[in-house]
């Protein structure tokens, strides 16, 4: 199906909708918006920055009429290529819709526009003693709209679950320009087909999320944190399993391999821990209980003979440790010029085996200059093998794509895992969709996509609605 062009007339019409200050075709902007944190680059024809639902609806109405592709974007922190305009057209930057609309403590809920930044929301809630728990590593930059569209999760998922668990309702503009509200302000409701859950994780393929109603929860009274350093990833994974099977639910149960720990600690200024694989255990709760919970975790972790154990209740030091963990991906960029993170989810029982096999990938590829760091949410079976290489060297770039095949076709899917735990399919994982879901399920997803988006204008060429694979630029 041929898409329409962004013509001079389209640009005038866009300027009429949101004003010339919200429309850009500057080559500098087109380049900046052509990237996320993957290797890919796709330039839009025009970037727009709407400030209201009405403007979003009018832009989509125009795009649908002219069959012009529209790619929504939050903060562009995606590690999947989801916000890249593969087919050109209109790039819709949602970051100007960044108002916190209400904080309703009595109902433990907030209403926000899609462009509100995750950490900014939590800064606002902190004085009230509340927070929005999903905590992706990109929380300093990522937007709530982006989190909804990827069902973002992060470090605290083991205890609180992903974004999906907190979304009460959504305001969504359909590709046809209609505005719908899904869900309810109530904590319980089964009065619809659960359109909210359908939109959550849909990677901008079904509609543009403009407003979000979120549940919030009280902040824990205090925290206690332990760092356990192991010589092998296997021992670390077994320690995490022991903690999990004991029925303890920490705030975080995270890991970083040796390579990642080194650079992340260098960035965050964490000193004095021996070189090794890090298991980070963070417990929250009442002052009385938190120390005892952490002690149980440490006792269990010590059975796998860590090289080093350290416990802290010092807020500043805890924040450094968490900052190091959250900076794992970009910190790996200290090692090589290109850094690409993957996002596989595994059955908990298979995680140690998968981690060991992932560690072998660079050796199997055997290309000088390509290596791999690994880190992630070991408590919920989600790890982020991260390739480090130089994308400008063709041999390394090709090896990276062979590494993806090994990761997903030979390790993750055969072990019963899923292609993505929290980043989305985007562009990078689109070629493996049928391998995980089968052709019938994929076809059903395509039909669902057409129901919402008959002209296939919204975020085409990737994600869950296809058509794919279209991994151009790879």
């Amino acid at each position, binding site marked *: 199906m041929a898409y329409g062009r962004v013509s001079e007339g389209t640009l005038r019409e866009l300027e009429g909708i949101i004003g010339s200050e919200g429309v850009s075709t500057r080559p*500098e902007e087109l380049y900046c918006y052509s990237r996320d944190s993957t290797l890919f680059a796709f330039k839009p024809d025009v970037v727009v920055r709407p400030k209201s639902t009405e403007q979003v609806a009018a832009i989509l109405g125009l795009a649908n009429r002219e069959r012009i592709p529209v790619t929504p974007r939050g903060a*562009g922190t995606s590690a999947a290529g989801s916000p890249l305009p593969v087919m050109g057209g209109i790039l819709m930057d949602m970051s100007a819709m960044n108002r916190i609309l209400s904080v309703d403590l009595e109902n433990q809920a907030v209403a926000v526009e899609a462009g509100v930044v995750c950490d900014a929301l939590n800064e606002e809630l902190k004085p009230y003693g509340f927070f929005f728990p999903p905590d992706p590593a990109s929380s300093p930059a990522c937007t709530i709209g982006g989190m909804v569209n990827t069902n973002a999760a992060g470090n605290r998922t083991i205890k609180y679950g992903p974004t999906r668990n907190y979304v009460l309702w959504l305001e969504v503009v359909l590709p046809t320009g209609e505005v719908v509200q899904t869900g309810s302000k109530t904590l319980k409701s089964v009065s619809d087909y659960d359109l909210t859950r359908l939109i959550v994780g849909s990677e901008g393929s079904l509609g543009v999320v403009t407003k979000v109603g979120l549940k919030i929860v009280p902040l824990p009274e205090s925290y206690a944190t332990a760092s356990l350093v192991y010589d092998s990833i296997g021992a670390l994974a077994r320690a995490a399993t022991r903690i999990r099977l004991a029925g303890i639910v920490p705030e975080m149960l995270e890991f970083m391999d040796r390579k990642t720990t080194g650079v992340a600690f260098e960035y965050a200024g964490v000193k004095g821990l021996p070189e090794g694989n890090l298991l980070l255990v963070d417990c929250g709760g009442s002052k009385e209980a938190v120390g005892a919970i952490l002690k149980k975790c440490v006792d269990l972790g010590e059975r796998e003979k860590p090289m080093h154990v350290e416990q802290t209740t010092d807020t500043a030091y805890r924040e450094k440790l968490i900052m190091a963990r959250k900076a794992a991906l970009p910190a790996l960029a200290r090692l090589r010029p290109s850094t690409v993170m993957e996002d596989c989810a595994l059955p908990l029982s298979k995680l140690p085996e998968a981690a060991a096999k992932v560690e072998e990938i660079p050796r199997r590829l055997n290309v000088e200059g390509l290596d791999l760091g690994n880190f992630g949410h070991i408590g919920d079976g989600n790890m982020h093998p991260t390739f480090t290489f130089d994308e400008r060297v063709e041999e390394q770039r090709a090896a990276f794509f062979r590494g993806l095949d090994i990761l997903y076709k030979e390790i993750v899917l055969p072990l019963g895992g899923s292609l993505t735990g929290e980043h989305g399919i985007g562009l990078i994982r689109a070629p493996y969709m049928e391998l995980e879901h089968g052709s019938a399920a994929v076809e059903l997803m395509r039909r669902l996509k057409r129901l919402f988006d008959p002209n296939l204008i919204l975020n085409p060429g990737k994600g869950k609605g296809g058509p794919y694979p279209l991994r151009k630029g790879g």
Partner: protein
Amino acid sequence: MITINSSLADFREEVQRCMRCGFCRALCPTWDFVGWESGSPRGRMQIIKVLLDEEVQVNEYVADRMYKCALCGYCLWRCPSGVKTTDAIRAARDHLVRQGYHPRVIDEIDGRIGENHNPYGLSKEDRTQWIAFTGLDDLVKTGKGAEILFFPGCVASFSSRAMVVAAATSQILDALGVNWTILGDEEWCCGNPLLLSGKSEPMKRVAEHNVNAMHRLGAKMVVTSCAGCYRTFTQDYPRVIGNLGFQVYHVSQVLENMLNQDKLKFSRDLDVTVTYHDPCELGRHTGVYEPPRRILRAIPGIRLVELPNNRFLTRCCGGGGILKATNPEIALNLAHKKLEEAHRVKAKIIASSCPSCKLNLSDAIAANEDPTQTLDITEIVAQAMNLKVM
């Protein structure tokens, strides 16, 4: 290796290492105002990349983005990948200057520094006018041999609203019995505005002049009350001319040392809630966070409260990075935001350690008729010592 004279081409690997995680956007003070991706530190790195790849040629739009940056260093500190963002932006400014795409005001500043050795264009004799203006003719000795050389810097020497900083520092040093002097009209602008604006070529001449003048007076220690001068002496001069042969301190470090030795004593109870704003060039750029706080905590009656974003997370007040010259509206808006932060913690006084911060915050206070006061740490110390300044 990146040096002060690195050209834009030397930053190819730096910008390649930017993997666009977006951490730098979180508290970037100027991105808020631009909104477009190109106005974020991450966006600036991408623009430098396309300039180097020659996908885009330098133009006014590129210049706008590179000069709408306070060079506050938040992105530099925040970047997990270790990209030298501020050096890259400075190199981009040098590149723009060479191609003639820089804001014209920069030529004016450069011309004044070249001719009169100060960015105000006033005569070099006027550099010591602050002494008479503040009534300290009997106290300040110019150009005599002394162990300590006080370097007030251009802002505190020429701006009537900031002269109080030079005066307060002089009064305090005198009251503490220190053997000190100033360079007088041999003091040249430290060169900080040249570096920030993309005119780094004359820097070596400026640095050599000042350092030689300091050596001629036999100074073993240079003390400055200006965060920008402190940064330039400690970070940039060594990169231009190597070892300086003397120690450089910010006045807050000297006062903290005196406090530790029980030589700095306070006789007045100030009974006021104060917050401390970390000047970017003293805090993030050079790591001096605690001395001003320790001094403030030691003053009777001062209740020190922290701003929501403090120390390395401090939001630039807009007074730096030559932003006040190139984008005065943004600079003023940043100062308004700083006042809002101060209101949130119920501070009556915003203390700082930089005359440029003081001036920009004062402008926002005047524009808003805001009841908050902004005082340099030396002014507060002088008050607590019961010294009459101006």
